């Protein structure tokens, strides 16, 4: 084995790129769940974002437009879930699963003519001499706009939930929708907004896969990323900062095990492939147990149907 072929700066930079789709999807889903809605359709919304982003980006040759379209299609697709669960009061778990199945099918139909084509590339932002700083230059200043956008959104979501009235109302709706209703807050509207936001985030994450990471369209290319995002939300105990830790941990382990395989480590390839899933879950479980146990549990109205009664 030759570990010298692994460059730490490149490893960290690759980690950030590889984590971004999951980070975006998990962040959006966290907001949705804080509003008390369990949307299991993350995978479906991601892949819809991936295919829309690719189709628009490929045809216009402007990747930025692809991302905008992906966010829009994710939000629209999520609003379908919102209509079913919030207005027509269908079961959230079943509807979410249906959304995933439908997204996977619809995206492969839309994406069929585009298979094997190459997406226009998203330019990296030029920070000038800053990116020449050893190690940090490559890690901090060598990325495209979406990576920075995702990090900015983590901070923004944290700030909104923690310090603003909108965030407080969102948490209140997720905590006790009956009480929020009796205080005069529009529970359904607030939840629909959260669902649309979650869909837009998942769509962005999906488009990042098809426009930057691969960058091409392949059927079923999200390959479970949406489910990982869902798991990260739970294990991160619904906190923005821990969602970032969870997503980067998972992305980092994925990149690391690929590097290890490339470096010639042959023993137990299966275990290496499995390790990101195992270790991410293990670490997040450890974070949430012990000292922090019970301090921050699930939103109390999570997954419950809200019906206006007299």
């Amino acid at each position, binding site marked *: 084995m030759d570990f010298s072929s692994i460059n730490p700066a490149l490893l960290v930079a690759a980690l950030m790129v590889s984590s971004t789709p999951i980070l975006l999807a998990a962040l959006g889903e966290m907001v949705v769940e804080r509003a008390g809605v369990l949307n299991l359709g993350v995978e479906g919304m991601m892949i819809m974002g991936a295919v829309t982003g690719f189709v628009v980006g490929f045809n216009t040759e402007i990747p930025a437009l692809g991302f905008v379209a992906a966010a829009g299609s994710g939000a629209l697709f999520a609003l379908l879930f919102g209509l079913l669960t919030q207005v027509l009061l269908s079961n959230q778990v079943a509807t979410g699963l249906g959304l995933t199945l439908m997204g996977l099918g619809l995206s492969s139909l839309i994406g069929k003519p585009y298979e094997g084509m190459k997406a226009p590339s998203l330019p990296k932002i030029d920070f000038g001499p800053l990116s020449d700083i050893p190690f940090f230059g490559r890690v901090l200043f060598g990325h495209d706009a979406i990576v920075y956008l995702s990090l900015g959104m983590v901070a923004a979501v944290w700030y909104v939930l923690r310090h603003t009235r909108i965030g407080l109302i969102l948490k209140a709706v997720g905590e006790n929708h009956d009480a929020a209703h009796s*205080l005069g807050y529009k529970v359904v509207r607030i939840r629909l907004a959260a669902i649309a936001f979650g869909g837009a985030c998942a769509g962005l994450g999906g488009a990042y896969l098809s426009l930057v990471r691969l960058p091409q369209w392949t059927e079923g290319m999200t390959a479970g990323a949406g489910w990982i995002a869902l798991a990260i939300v739970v294990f991160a105990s619904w906190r923005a900062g821990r969602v970032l830790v969870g997503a980067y941990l998972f992305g980092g382990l994925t990149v690391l095990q690929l590097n290890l395989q490339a470096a010639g480590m042959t023993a137990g390839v299966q275990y290496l492939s499995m390790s990101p899933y195992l270790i991410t879950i293990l670490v997040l479980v450890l974070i949430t147990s012990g000292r922090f146990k019970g301090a921050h549990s699930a939103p109390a109205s999570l997954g419950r149907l809200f019906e206006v009664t007299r």
Partner: protein
Amino acid sequence: MSETLLSISGLTKAYPGVVANSDVSFDIGVGEVHALLGENGAGKSTLVKMIYGLVKPDTGQMTLRGQPFAPPEPRAARLDGIAMVFQHFSLFDALNVAENIALGMENPPPLRDLAQRICEVSETYGLPLDPDRTVGVLSAGERQRVEIIRCLLQDPKLLIMDEPTSVLTPQEVDILFETLRKLSAEGTAILYISHKLEEIRTLCDTATILRLGKVVGTCTPSETTARDMAEMMVGSALKTPEPSNRPLGEVALSVTGLSVESPSNFGTSLKNIHFDLRQGEILGIGGVAGNGQDELLAALSGETRAANDAIKFNGAAIGQMGPTERRNLGLLAAPEERLGHAAAPNMSLTENAMLTGSTRKKLEKNGFLDWGAARSFAEHVIKQFDVRTPGPGNAARSLSGGNLQKFVIGREVLQDPDVLIVNQPTWGVDAAAAAAIRQALLDLAGKGAAVLVISQDLDELMEISGRFAALNEGRLSDIRPTADLTVEEIGLMMGGAHGMEVAHIEELAR
């Protein structure tokens, strides 16, 4: 008090199948404490929801200070100076006090300034409250303070209080009344909903009585007896339950050093509880909600396990037994929550009868269910306890609260228990049904069963139980005969006033 603040005329609201309010009219004057009386289902809640803008009336008008008043949503009502303290608190457990208060305000100041104001107001009105505490860990009395302070911060002209005292100790009630009187003296009108008649007699200036959605009378509570008001509410004469005078028998249930960790985050753990329950006795356990009542019922019924020796049934240790084994022995229980705990809402009454009666009533043979027997058992309960329902095939959720409660209690009583444990047997039940349930419990004890009644209704416990003890933060007080207990003593047993002090309004005036 001559000036009219809010005038209601001809309000009507119908829901499919039921008229909640029919042509309701009355006036509330500035600074008046106005009681709204009525049984469950009389339409009190619908009426105040219309005033608060949560429900729109079908017909009828309201005027506020002479101006037409029709709030499209609570926000508008709040802007016009209407504030409401809800019966089931509209609080968010995971958020802190200041955040909860901010959510109920139109234009809350930044949280730090708000915390400051909460401290000032709570100081002035003698309702101490720490703005940074998480609401989930507060006692019921403290939670109510959060709601009241949320209202006071908005300088209300009309304060609506829906059953505010059901969760308070007597001392806390006194202090609440003191606060309300000061508010009324400052010119705030109070619309006070309750079915505790003695409280209304001490506090309120006028009372409007509702029955089945209609105004059936008004009275001056201080000049009317509680019994007269009750009969106006019910529309018929009331029967007072009569105890039997049977001598007590052997110790049927003995609890020594019972300590159980609460399974839920915001629950209360039981700490070293001792008591003996004798045959033919009714032991009443009072206390403010959330002080371990649910946990005590769970530990005694077998839902949570305790140390084996901590609970002895006729001398045999049963702490590690599950509910079915205990039922087999003759220890039955009826928990507080009717829908979802005592009864499965979507199952029929026959199925619900099967659920707890299968072993004792032999409704199950070799693992096969005898539905015919279950049905006749359910019919027996319905007949004996006058449960108003078309038949045992109806789903539990279709019954009104009082009728379902009669069914749930009747189902256990008719299984001939040696020991029966009930939690809140008449909670949310109208006066006639409550009297019937109490009589059934007294009759059961008269037949030699031991009965443990956990309740927050002190009048009920004084009426039916021979001895009384209070739960406070998971500990049980000394057990005292009810005959020589005063209200003050009971209050102290329940934990006193939790650090409340009487309002010193003078500071506000300065």
